[in-house]
Structures are given as C-alpha cells and as structure tokens.
C-alpha cells in the first residue's frame, strides 16, 4: 500500500491552467482603495525599509492573490478526487454480504447487536464511496437477498442498509456467495466483503474443533470481516416429545449455554397457554448443555410452548422460546393386504396399530399412515409411508428389470433407520433385479432414490422421499426369499412401523424450526392468510391435494393460518439451532481450494478527500472574503 493518495480523475489537473488567467486578471483588475494622506514621506521610508522588502513581507503583500490561488488549487485538487488508500484493494464493483442469521441479533455488553455493528462499518464504506465505485448490498441468512443494484447512490444504499433486519434462521453463506458469483458474469468483481459473526455451520476437524466448511469455489477475493464476540447467551436448542404411553408424552428440552460465561435460566413449559408442572432452574457452565424432561398427559392435540427466562446476561432473545404441536393420540393405521401373511403376522404383535383390512373387504379409508403392499395399485392409497415389495417403480422400469434366478445381498446400509439390527447375510432371493443395459446406479439416484441394499446384479432395496411421503421399495418379493423366516424380518417390520409413526407424528414430534413451516394438510384449493409473529400477513393457496407448503417463517413465534377471517390452525416456529445459540464464531472459513481468515480489525476502505478539500476551499474563500471586506480606515481631510 502506498502512502501517496490516489487520484480518481487525473484529467481534472488541467484545471490548474486556470491559475494563469487568475494571476493575470488579479493584477489587471487589482483595485486598491485610494486614500489621500498629508505626505508620503513617512510611508515611503516605511516601504523602503529593508524589512518590508523581505521575501516574507512580499509574500504578505499579495495575500488576496494567495488566497485566490489557494482556493483554486484546492478546488482543482477536489475535482481530481484524490483518496487515501485503505487496507482494502480498490474495487470498482464491490458486493457487500451482510450476515443476517439469528446470531447477528446477539448484543454486546453495551446493547449493540452485531448486525448494528456491521451496519456501522458498511455505512462508513458507503459514506466514503468514491465516485467510480459501485456497491451492492446482499443479505445472507439461510437464503440470500440482493437489497440494491450496483449503485453509488448513497441515499439508496443507506436506505437499503437501514432496512436490513435479522432473520431468526441459521446461516448458509453459500447462498450469498453464489449470488455474488452470479454477479461476476455481468460485472468485473475482484473482491467481495463478507460481514459476519463467523457463526457458520461447522463440522469437527481432525482435532475435534469446529471447522466452518463451505462447499464453494471462490472466483473472487473474499474479505471476511468478523464482528466482535458478544456477551454470554443461553437458549433452547431442542424441543421434542415422544409418546411414552397411550395418553402420555415425554417432552424433552435441551438448553445450551454459550462459551462466554456461566449462564442460568428458568424454564417454564406451558400447554395451550396453561403451565405444565413447575418451572425448572438451570445453571450451565460455559459451553455446557442440559437436557430437561417434562411429562405431559393428554390424548388431545396440544400446543406446547417452552419459555426460557434468563437469570443474568443473555445476548440472544430469539432462542428463549420454542413451540411444539402435539397431535391427537391414535393408533397407527396400516394397510396390509391379507395375502402378505408374514407382514400381518409381524404387525399383529405390535402395539398401537390398526391393521387393515380386517376382512376381505377394502376399508376404503381416505388416508393411512402406512401402506404395505405388493401391488403397484396400492401406491395410489394416500399415506405418509409406503413399503412396496416385489414391485419395480414405474419410473425405474427402463433402468431396472427383474428376472428369476438366485441372488443375495452384497451390501446394505446398516445405519439406515429401516435396516437397523437387520442381518441380510446368507439371505437367498429368487427375484433377481438387474440394471438394464448401460444403466448405472447413478441414474437411479438422479431420480431421487437411495439404494439401501445391493445385490449381485442390481439394487434390492430403495428408499425415496417425495415431500412428506416416504416410500421403501423392495425390488424382490419377500415371499420369494428367505427373509420372512429370518429373525431380522420382524425387526424390519418394527423399524418400518417406527418410521411410519414418526412420519405420522404419532411417536416423536419435533419443534418446527424457522425457515419454512412444515407442510400443512388443509382444504384443497383454498386461499389462506398467514399472519406471522410480527403481524406481517401473506396469502398462499393450498394445492389440489390440500397441502399448504413453502410458508416462509423468518421469525420465531406463532403463525396463524386463517381462512375467511377464521383461524384454521396455528404453527409455532422456533430457532432450535445449537450453532446459533452457541454464538461461536469461527476465525477461518474453509473453501474447496483455499482458506479465508477472518479480519477482526476494521479494514479501512479508500477514503475520498475531495470533500475535505472542498471544505478547505470554502474556508479559504471565507478568509478571502473577510480580507476583502476589511475596509481600510480613511483619514478625514
């Protein structure tokens, strides 16, 4: 970095040529006040004095001219737009990414949030923007939003900056970086500035320390400016419930404290607005967490709310409350044809299951929780979980084919929720699924399937999630294998029931995180009004299947779903993010090919000097004006 100031408009130096006419006109048009005095004798001797003719005195004689020359020089210098070079490289187009995730709302001891601190620094940049610089503001939370176009309009930029607010969602810097990368196709972008608290998704490195890894190739120089660490924080990071009996729920709450200091709080659980049990007090050492268990007896649906009241310093308010919607207690409805004896035999011994059909007649239920079938037609039954055996999905018919033969399981995902504790070794299967000529596993995965078990010539078990629906596909018929005779078969069915209960929210219920509300099943093709916690109202229509999905939930709180003025349902959205609650900020971001270190110090931008020069010119002008207006005292005749 050079200490010499830079010049934005060097061509303006031609205006220095105005000095020539200035001097010429000054001497041509110099008008002195005439004053008659008795005699010049004394003044002539004064002027002839050696001291008067000293260079300094000569300099002072034409003070007015010097003022004018100084004023012109300052104005020309201002027109040249000099600037003091900052630490950061000068960039013509500068995208500024501002982290607006939940942790940016954390306040320091003085009560200033980290977002406000970031705004102050960005405001400084905007204020000192050079004439050839354009800035665009991009907010980054779990998504990215471009607040302004590339502009040097300070009013627009400052208005946009003031409108930026924190979203109660986790941070995903990739979104903002991808947006900046898209801008590089249109603009010459060399540098991107990223203001964040460093509270980014992490994973443990080799030493077990959290490491922020962003799966992104940086096409530009990223200047990561990390904001100061805030004060201590305590918050709720998990809120879920598990059914422990026909009318009993165990409610689990995890409370975590930041690494800054010891924290304490009082936890209060309420259901439908009424307190449940007595408040629990929690004292956490720095960086520690504690799990609390509440018991709630109810067979009806209930809205649970857990509220944390900090006893002392608490930087973040968004993680002090969480919501949980408990469903009505009911048995799991399972459709399993009577021909699938092995499945029905395994299901009958399990609790809280309504096995259908009970006779030969089709129950014709509108919805089921679990459909187990060997018929492709049963895939049309509405359910949240499916298991189809001996059926190749229609979209895989060109990729896979099933032939007779003998095959066995080569490998399977032992940690899959369906296959936990299921042993496939020495399993004989007489249906042989095979890849079509030229087809590979990648094609199946591209269609959204996950291979859970693989045979000699092709996949044997597939899993696919389509929105709220989860389906398992056993490409072989279990009746044409030795699986029903294995100990692992009832285990597999039990796993399937457990998954189906989770899918139907009958066994485990988790608090909905902010970002997007869970899909709601409502009336089909209806327009609903969603009233957020900040009274912000948006409208959205349900689909033909009655699902209302993709509802943006940027703030922690309860969202009312209204139809024709009536509240249809309420859904609570909670932060429930250990990373955001910890307020831990990384000092380094690992990208695919390089690592970017955080800068704690405020990297100074290029600071324009033209306005200071203009002020100085104005001051000189005032001085000249004052000097000009000083009327000499005359000698009365």
């Amino acid at each position, binding site marked *: 970095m050079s200490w010499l100031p830079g010049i934005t408009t060097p061509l303006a130096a031609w205006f220095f040529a105005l000095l020539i006419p200035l001097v010429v006109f000054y001497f041509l048009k*110099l008008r*002195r*006040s*005439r*004053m*008659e*005095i*008795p*005699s*010049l*004798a*004394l*003044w*002539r*001797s*004064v*002027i002839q*004095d050696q*001291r*008067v003719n000293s260079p300094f*005195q000569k300099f*002072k*004689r*034409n*003070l*007015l001219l010097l003022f004018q020359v100084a004023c012109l020089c300052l104005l020309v210098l201002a027109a040249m737009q000099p600037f003091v070079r900052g630490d950061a490289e000068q960039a013509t187009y500068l995208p500024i990414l501002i982290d607006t995730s939940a942790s940016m709302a954390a306040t320091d001891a003085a009560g200033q949030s980290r977002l406000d601190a970031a705004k102050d620094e960005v405001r400084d940049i905007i204020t000192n923007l050079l004439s050839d610089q354009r800035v665009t503001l991009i907010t980054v939370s779990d998504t990215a939003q471009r607040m302004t176009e590339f502009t040097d309009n300070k009013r627009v930029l400052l208005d946009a900056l003031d409108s930026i607010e924190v979203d109660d969602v986790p941070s995903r810097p990739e979104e903002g970086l991808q947006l900046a990368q898209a801008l590089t196709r249109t603009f010459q972008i060399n540098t991107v500035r990223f203001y964040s608290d460093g509270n980014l998704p992490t994973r443990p490195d080799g030493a077990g320390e959290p490491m922020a890894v962003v799966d992104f190739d940086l096409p530009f120089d990223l200047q990561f400016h990390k904001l100061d660490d805030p004060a201590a924080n305590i918050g709720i990071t998990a809120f879920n419930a598990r059914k422990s009996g026909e009318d009993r729920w165990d409610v689990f709450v995890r409370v975590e404290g930041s690494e800054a200091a010891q924290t304490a709080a009082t936890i209060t659980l309420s259901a439908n607005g009424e307190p449940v049990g007595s408040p629990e007090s929690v004292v956490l050492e720095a960086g520690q967490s504690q799990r609390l268990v509440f018991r709630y007896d109810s067979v009806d649906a209930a809205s649970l709310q857990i509220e944390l009241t900090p006893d002392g310093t608490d930087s973040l308010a968004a993680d002090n409350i969480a919501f949980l919607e408990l469903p009505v207690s009911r048995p799991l409805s399972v459709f399993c044809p009577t021909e699938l004896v092995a499945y029905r035999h395994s299901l009958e011994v399990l609790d809280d299951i309504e096995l259908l059909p009970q006779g030969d007649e089709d129950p014709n239920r509108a919805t089921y929780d679990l459909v187990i079938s060997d018929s492709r037609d049963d895939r049309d039954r509405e359910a949240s979980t499916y298991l189809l055996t001996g059926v190749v999905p229609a979209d895989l018919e060109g990729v896979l084919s099933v032939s007779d033969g003998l095959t066995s399981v080569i490998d399977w995902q032992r940690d899959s929720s369906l296959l936990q504790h299921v042993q496939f070794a020495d399993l004989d299967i007489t249906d042989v699924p095979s890849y079509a000529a030229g087809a590979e596993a990648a094609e199946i995965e591209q269609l959204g399937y996950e291979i859970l078990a693989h045979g000699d010539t092709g996949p044997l078990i597939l899993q696919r999630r389509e929105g709220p629906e989860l389906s398992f596909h056993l490409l072989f018929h279990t009746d044409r294998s030795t699986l029903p005779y294995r100990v692992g078969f009832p285990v597999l069915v039990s796993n399937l029931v457990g998954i189906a209960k989770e899918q139907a929210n009958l066994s485990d219920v988790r608090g909905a995180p902010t970002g997007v509300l869970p899909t709601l099943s409502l009336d089909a093709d209806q327009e609903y009004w969603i009233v957020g916690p900040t009274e912000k109202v948006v409208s959205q229509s349900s689909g033909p299947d009655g699902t209302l999905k993709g509802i943006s939930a940027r703030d922690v709180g309860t969202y009312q779903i209204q139809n024709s003025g009536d509240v249809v349902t309420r859904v609570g959205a909670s932060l429930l993010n250990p990373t955001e609650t910890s307020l831990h900020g990384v000092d380094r971001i690992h990208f695919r090919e390089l690592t970017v270190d955080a800068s704690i110090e405020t990297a100074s931008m290029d600071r324009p000097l033209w306005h200071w020069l203009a002020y100085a010119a104005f001051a000189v002008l005032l001085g000249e004006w004052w*000097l000009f207006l*000083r*009327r*000499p*005292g005359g*000698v*009365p*005749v």
Partner: protein
Amino acid sequence: MPETTTQFTSLLPNDVLARVERMRLNPLKRKTNHSRGEHLSGKGGASTEFADYRDYSPGDDVRYVDWNIFARINHPYLKLYKHEEEMHVVLLVDASRSMQFEGKFDLARQLAAAFGVMGLFNVEKVSAYSCTERAVDPVVLPHCTGRSSMRRLLAFLEELPGGGEFPIEAAIEEVLKRHRGKGVAVVLSDFLTLGDMTRSFNLLHSANLEIFALQILGPTELDPELTGDLRFVDSETNQTLDVSSVGELLGLYHEHREALSNHLAALCRKRQGRFVTMSSEEDIKSVLFDRLLRRGWVR
C-alpha cells in the same frame, strides 16, 4: 442670563490671550539686536540698572561720567548700565497642503498668534511668514513691534491662506532670504518632507536665530488605524504609493515616525534649539500653559 463676551480674535480665546499677554519667550541664548529693547544685553547699556565702571575714552558720552567719583579722585570713570536690547521673533507657519489635515494648520496659527503676542507685549520685533506654493512669494508680515501691532498680527494670521506644495526646508531658506536680525525662529510645521532639514536648521542657526521647532501631527499620523491594500496619494504632490497589508506595517510606521521626531529633535538640540511634537487635537491651553511652560519655552 449669561454674559456674552466678544472674542478679540478667532484664534485665541480672550482668557488665553490675556494670559499670553503676560508671558514672554524664554530663549536659551541671548540673541538680540542692538536696538533698544527689553532684553538685557551683555554690553553696557542705558537702562537704570547699574552694571559696572570703566575708564573714560575720548568720544564717550560725557553724560555717563560719574561726576561724584571724578570729584573725589579727579579721574573720569564712565558709569555702565545694563543694556536692554530688542529680540526678533520670526514666526514661520507651514501653510502647505499637508498642514490642512485634521486641524494642524489651525493649531499652528493659534500657536503663532500666541508667540507673536508674547513678542509684541515684550517690545520685540515680530515678523511672520507663511509659505504655500514654490512659485509664489511667501506671505509676509513685516516686522512690527509694540502692543499696537497685535491687531495687525492677529488679522494677518487669521487670513493666512493654506494649500500648496512648498516643502518646509525650502520655505525656511526662502524666509531667510528676506529676514535680517537675531532672535528666535518659531517654525510651526508637520516636518513631513522628503527633503533634509539639516541644511535649513544650519541656516537658521547661522542667522543667529534660535530654533523653536514645533511639529504638529494629526491623530491619524500619530496613531493610524489602517488595514488592507491601499493606494496612498500625497496631498501636495499627488504622487501615489501602493501599500499592501497596511495593518502589518503599522508597527514599522511608528518606528519611522518616532525616528523622524528624534532626528529633528537632535538637529535642534545640536544647534541650541528646541523641538517638540504635539497632536493637532491638543488644546491650546494645555500646550501653552502646560507643556511649553514646563519645558521652559516661555515664562
């Protein structure tokens, strides 16, 4: 009702005039003429105040022989008395254009009137000169004596014209061409001249005239309050002088003004003369009855 009093002259109030009539000049040296006057001469004279005796020489006026001594010792001795000779008071008033500022000329005329009245009331010969233009002869009041000439002197001073560019050093030389007689030369001027006063004072001294130099300056000459860039115009010569940042030069101006006064005072002192600088704003009473009296110019 207040009593109204008719002023005898516009130059001096009656009370000042009455007091001036009782005052007389007090020169440092006796520079008198042989004419009989009221100034005691070093020589024997015809006054009533006895001085000494000397031997009689043929041709001496026998009226001064002391016959009592002659009767006792039979040798004629001449009785000597102190001689009271006449002193010439020359009033030179600078009436040039530079004196027309800020009442300088008025004070000069008042002082000239006061000195003239003192001379007349002490039976001196008083003459007055005033110089204006180079090409014009000085305005002259021929020497006069006696209190009967007071009206004439005052009228002359009251009607004295002003203006012109005659420098004071040239005016002194011009006056000395016309003047004869010893005494006192009262020079009333601002002495703001580009020339040198040394020669003029030498001429006065050699003409047996004791120099009474009174420098009269205006308040803006003594303490100017000027700022900015100015073009000074000489009132006498119309020459101009451009001066920038006048305010910055005031300190230097004061140094030069004091240096000029000190130089003139030194010139006078070396020639047994007197010099004083005064402001034209000063009251005639304080000048006459305070400053000049305390300095011994008059008594």
